[in-house]
């Protein structure tokens, strides 16, 4: 409550400041949300953070001083429990500070009484004491508390109550296209339910990128990171050291070659040996300016401890072509094979393949895209496979005389097979919004979302949105938004058909544009 009061006071002060100062931009919004809902509140995620009550927002706020100092802020729903806020002060080339606050919940029970709420507050500060040097640091606090219900047993309640803080400090040195960054980041996790989970982490990271003097087309990249996760109340620590090297070479006429090497060695307290992850990646590409391009890549990865060793070999081919100034095609194919070279693992050898393709048509009215992809994963040793296909299309169009339209549709089909059975899924997702142009100082909009999951699942959910806005005085508007939500899980696994939800929401806002 105290925090809400502070936030409201801060917002009011900003609004008052704007009223007398005059050199600013932003939208102040005062409104009310009416919420009428029925059914299982845990079912419909889009309404988890809707609350009935007053709303106060200050959006896209900007204030600039003559000396180049800039204050900006976005305060969404400061009086609600789904607050999402940012406040910043910056001066280019000198430094800045940003404060963020975010709060939202996840509902677990039919009546909405069992939920967890996550609250995050963080701040970052940076200064440039010299032209080529940036020093930065910050602190953040995340708190999550509440009650979760067991995934399959709605009578079983799991308490959640923890807080996690992090801090970081570092410096960045830049010179022309060269950059060196060193950062230390630590975190502390404290669990009020089970102190055995308490955990501290620290990470020291240094990374650099630079072109080679006199060979500016050759860019080198390197870094090192030491990570340690330590359980506070028991002797258990995970340490990982990672180093990486990379190079990119631009050869004239659109040729590019990239190479990367990453090595990671991780060890836990009590481990006899460490686990190594080693990755080598090489890419080669050719671009014909504004006409097209092709790229070929190869990745070799080794994951190894003294008992097991797994080698991955992956390939990727992709390309794009502008068939006409308005029509573009992109396509690609990737494949990776994991083989157990030594020892044995539970999942054994694995093959993964992926195809994708996209066509884009762009004209003065807007853009139309068609996209498709196919993914397949097979673990022959244990008789498991996943086969997934997805197609999507979207349209964004604006007709100056009438208004704008954004619409998308996605179809997916998946088959997951193992030795005990098969899970199949077919899904359709529609989403779209239409907005008119402003006519007689009024503007209207209409939109909706429809999701249908079929085969081994049987879920249908949809929402419909309608909005109207009217400018009743210069820079003052009234906005009314009506939305309806519906969710049904017809498969009724529990047998008591409790997996349904419906809601009607009306939002009324008064907006003043500064």
């Amino acid at each position, binding site marked *: 409550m105290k925090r809400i009061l502070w936030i409201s006071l801060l917002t009011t002060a900003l609004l008052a400041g704007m009223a007398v100062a005059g050199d600013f931009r932003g939208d102040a919004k005062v409104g009310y949300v009416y919420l009428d809902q029925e059914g299982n509140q845990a079912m419909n995620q*889009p309404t*988890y953070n809707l609350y009935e009550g007053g709303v106060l927002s200050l959006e896209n706020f900007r204030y*600039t001083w003559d000396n*180049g100092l800039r204050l*900006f802020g976005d305060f969404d729903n400061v009086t609600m429990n789904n607050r999402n806020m940012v406040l910043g002060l910056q001066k*280019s080339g000198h430094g800045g500070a940003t404060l963020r606050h975010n709060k939202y919940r996840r509902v677990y029970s039919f009546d909405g009484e069992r939920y967890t709420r996550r609250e995050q507050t963080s701040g970052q500060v940076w200064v*440039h004491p010299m*032209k080529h040097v940036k020093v930065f640091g910050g602190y953040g606090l995340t708190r*999550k508390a509440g009650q979760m219900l067991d*995934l*399959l047993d709605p009578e079983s309640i799991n308490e959640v109550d923890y807080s*996690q803080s992090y801090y970081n400090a570092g410096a960045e040195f*830049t010179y*022309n296209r060269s950059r*060196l960054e060193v950062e230390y980041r630590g975190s502390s996790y404290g669990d009020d339910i089970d102190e055995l*989970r308490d955990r501290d982490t620290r990470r020291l*990271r240094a990374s*650099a*990128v630079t072109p*080679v003097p006199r060979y500016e087309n050759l860019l*080198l*990249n*390197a870094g*090192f*990171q030491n990570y340690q*996760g330590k*359980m506070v109340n*028991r002797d258990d620590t995970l340490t*990982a050291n990672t*180093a990486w*090297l990379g190079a990119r070479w631009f050869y004239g006429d659109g040729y590019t070659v990239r190479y990367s090497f990453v090595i*990671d060695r*991780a060890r836990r307290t009590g481990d006899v040996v*460490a*686990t*190594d992850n*080693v990755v080598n*990646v090489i890419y080669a590409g050719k*671009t014909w300016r504004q006409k097209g*391009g092709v*790229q070929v*890549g190869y*990745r070799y990865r080794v994951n190894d401890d003294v*008992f097991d*060793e*797994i080698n991955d070999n992956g390939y990727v081919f992709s390309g794009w072509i502008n068939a006409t100034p308005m029509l573009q095609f992109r396509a690609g194919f990737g494949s990776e094979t994991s083989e157990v070279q030594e020892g044995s693992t*539970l999942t054994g050898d694995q093959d993964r393949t992926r195809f994708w393709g996209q066509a884009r048509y762009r004209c003065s009215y807007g853009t139309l*895209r068609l996209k498709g992809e196919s993914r397949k994963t097979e673990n022959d040793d244990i008789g*498991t496979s*996943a086969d997934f296909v997805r*197609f999507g299309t979207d349209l964004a169009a604006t007709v100056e005389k009438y208004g704008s339209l954004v619409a*998308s549709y996605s179809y*997916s089909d998946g088959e*997951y097979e193992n*030795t005990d059975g098969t*899970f199949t899924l077919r*899904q359709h997702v529609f*989403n779209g919004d239409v907005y008119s142009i402003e006519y007689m100082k009024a503007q209207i909009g209409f939109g909706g979302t429809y*999701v249908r*999951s079929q085969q081994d699942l049987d879920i249908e959910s949809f929402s419909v949105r309608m909005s109207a806005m009217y400018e009743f005085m210069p820079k003052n508007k009234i906005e009314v938004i009506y939305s309806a939500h519906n969710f049904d899980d017809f498969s009724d696994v529990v047998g008591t058909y409790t997996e349904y939800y419906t809601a009607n929401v009306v939002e009324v806002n008064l907006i003043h544009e500064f």
Partner: protein
Amino acid sequence: MAKTPGFRSPAIAGIGALLIMVLILVSVVVAQESQPDNETCLMCHEGLDASLMATTHRLTKGADKHGFQISCVSCHTGAAVHVEDPSAENIGNPARMTTVDQNEICSGCHQPHKEQGTLGFDPHIGQDLGCTDCHGVHDAGVSLLLDDDGEFCGQCHVAVVSGFRQRSNHPLTSGNISCVSCHDFSGGTEPLVGHGGSTNCASCHQELAGPFRFEHEAGSSFSTEGDGCVACHSPHGSPNERLLTQPVSSLCQSCHGTPAGHMVAHSGIGSAYACVDCHNAVHGSNDNRGLLDPQLGTKFGDGPGSCYCHNVLD
């Protein structure tokens, strides 16, 4: 250590990294040519400076004591010729340039993601996308992104954004998180994800991160058995509860099948009961190797620590 080919020592790699960092200290200074000042540009392009006022590219009045300066010619090349012969053809506009040329200009002040992204599989690099495909300059927002919500990324990643509209999802469409909450465009060691997928997830879900006394190896991206959190979870969204890629028992069975003895002794576990009814410590356990619920005896059996035939706390 088991023998594997290649460059295996972090110490050697670290020395290599150090050598490259040292190269920065000897990099070359690029000479600057004389250019027209802002006032000259604004004589014809009146008001364009206002569109930069609230952004990080706000024009400065000359250089400050650090030598920091932002002027029209910082981004628009060829201005000297353009002043003599004003034409849309002879002034450089990054938004209309090819990716390579655009990067050259932006990297004069910024370290573009493309330059940092020499590692991993960043697909944006191979797709010839330039800075201005995602960033604006005039009238842009604070982060200079053309828009900073999921809808913007969704213009290209249509199918991905549709995932966030499924039954369970990360709260992107409600604005509580954004794509960059998880995807790091600043050159992480994994493709577009900060150091290791699971470490990235743990930045918010530390309670599930471990290390545990008894790990579920599938969830550890460091081990030879694991793929990290994404072995079981679909991070954008899923038609199943809790972002699971399949309904819970089907998911367990995809690696474990129905282990010997379960079907007979428990009258059809795998169909009558879900795996997590007993093995509920799926992320890892501090109590027992079987990741069993320490309260299992109380739940189903004949007292704490015991579930008929099994000592749960083994």
